[in-house]
């Protein structure tokens, strides 16, 4: 795809915004706020029609819901039945606190969407996100209480934070959780098994357990779906299927930077290239740019080595935190990269990380950034 217009879907702690860039990706116009004051964990376009948007929303007071737009964000309607666990007895009966991740279904399954929630829960919609069902294969799995132990999890609650689908096979799926690591299904979510061999959990007595890791982000490589990159709580990893043991490619990062972060972005046309946004994981784990000097790091050899890319970022006193849904690529050539900070700044590079510039400041805390073609 030649360089061209891009739409950025921004979810923040206080509402959503849509930025529209021109063909040169130099001039940006803004639409919003949309649902001002609502906590927007994820705002995603349906790549199968390019127009439908789904938004995971909640507020400090109100329960979680899904808003849908069929016209690219001009008008919104609430889902008839948002993700919810089945009715159960007892004080501990699960209730969705918030939907964290929205995943359009396989390209061949129009109308299908998947959602990940806190507490860890998997939900599916077969009608474009209007009504949602609990997926028993994960939510009622006999191992659920061990894969998603109560009380474990992030400051924002334990998460089923991501769903990834093999583009070659709608039945082949991966989940990332903050409580159990990565899980794999080969039968369209009917059954699941842990996939964490080789991944460290430095916060557990057994540092290499079968499950219990905190998988911040996984990326199936679009051009080579047998290659999966992972930014874990405890480092950067790569898995080449049918292998089952992850390799810690973050060991090649500079020691003074480390390999802690929230997300990893693969180059859509080159399975050896990926970017990370390292954050400080020393002492009390500040999770800010090491030394106050923001940078992305790029590998072009599948993690054997990494190079620093920081042109345009603050040279000092830049304490960026970039959350797991807030770093993405646009698919153009040269590839555009976009990241949003918890300080409400939106940054981009239109040359594959070579130079960075700010395109928005003073937004609320940014939770998610999704790049999409214009509607």
């Amino acid at each position, binding site marked *: 795809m030649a360089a061209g217009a891009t739409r950025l879907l921004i979810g923040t702690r206080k509402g959503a915004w849509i930025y529209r860039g021109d063909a040169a990706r130099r001039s940006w116009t803004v639409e919003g706020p949309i649902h001002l004051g609502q906590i927007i964990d994820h705002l995603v376009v349906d790549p199968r029609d390019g127009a439908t948007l789904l938004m995971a929303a909640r507020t400090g007071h109100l329960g979680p819901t899904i808003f849908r737009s069929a016209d690219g964000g001009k008008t919104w309607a609430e889902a008839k039945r948002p993700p919810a666990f089945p009715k159960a007895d007892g004080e501990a*009966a699960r209730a969705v606190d918030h939907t964290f991740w929205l995943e359009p279904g396989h390209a061949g399954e129009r109308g299908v969407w998947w959602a990940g929630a806190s507490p860890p829960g998997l939900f599916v919609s077969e009608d474009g996100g209007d009504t949602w069902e609990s997926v028993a294969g994960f939510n009622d799995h006999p191992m659920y209480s061990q894969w998603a132990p109560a009380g474990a999890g992030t400051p924002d609650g334990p998460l089923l934070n991501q769903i990834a689908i093999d583009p070659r096979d709608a039945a082949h799926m991966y989940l990332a959780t903050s409580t159990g690591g990565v899980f794999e299904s080969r039968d369209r979510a009917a059954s699941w098994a842990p996939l964490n061999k080789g991944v460290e959990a430095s916060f557990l007595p057994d540092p290499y357990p079968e499950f219990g890791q905190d998988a911040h982000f996984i990326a199936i490589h679009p051009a080579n779906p047998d290659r999966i990159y992972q930014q874990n709580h405890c480092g950067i990893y790569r898995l080449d299927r049918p292998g089952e043991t992850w390799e810690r490619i973050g060991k090649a990062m500079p020691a003074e930077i480390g390999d802690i972060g929230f997300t990893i972005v693969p180059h859509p046309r080159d399975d050896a290239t990926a970017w990370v946004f390292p954050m400080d994981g020393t002492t009390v784990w500040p999770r800010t740019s090491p030394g106050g000097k923001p940078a992305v790091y790029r590998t072009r050899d599948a993690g054997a080595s990494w190079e620093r890319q920081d042109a345009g970022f603050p040279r000092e006193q830049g304490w960026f935190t970039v959350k797991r849904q807030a770093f993405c690529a646009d698919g153009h050539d040269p590839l555009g990269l976009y990241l949003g900070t918890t300080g409400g700044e939106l940054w981009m590079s239109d040359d594959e990380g070579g130079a960075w510039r700010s395109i928005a400041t003073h937004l609320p805390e940014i939770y998610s950034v999704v790049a999409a073609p214009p509607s």
Partner: protein
Amino acid sequence: MIAVSIPTQLQSYCAGASRVEAAGSTVDGVLRDLDRRFPGIRFRVVDEQGRIRRHMRIFVGREAAGGVDARLRDGDEVLIFGALSGG
């Protein structure tokens, strides 16, 4: 009928109304009646297990409703509030 006070957080469901009337012999009955007319409103106040959400408060007159099973008499007033939830 029951008079229901709607907090600002939920008035978008009720065309901006701050007070509406509803039918029901319990708080849950009132919320279900509201949900029929204002789809989606109940789930934002009560979770899927029937518990009032942590940062929502429901009163019957001046008494806090202990749960959605609280009984109502014709002419009661139900007040729904968004409580403190941080910035």
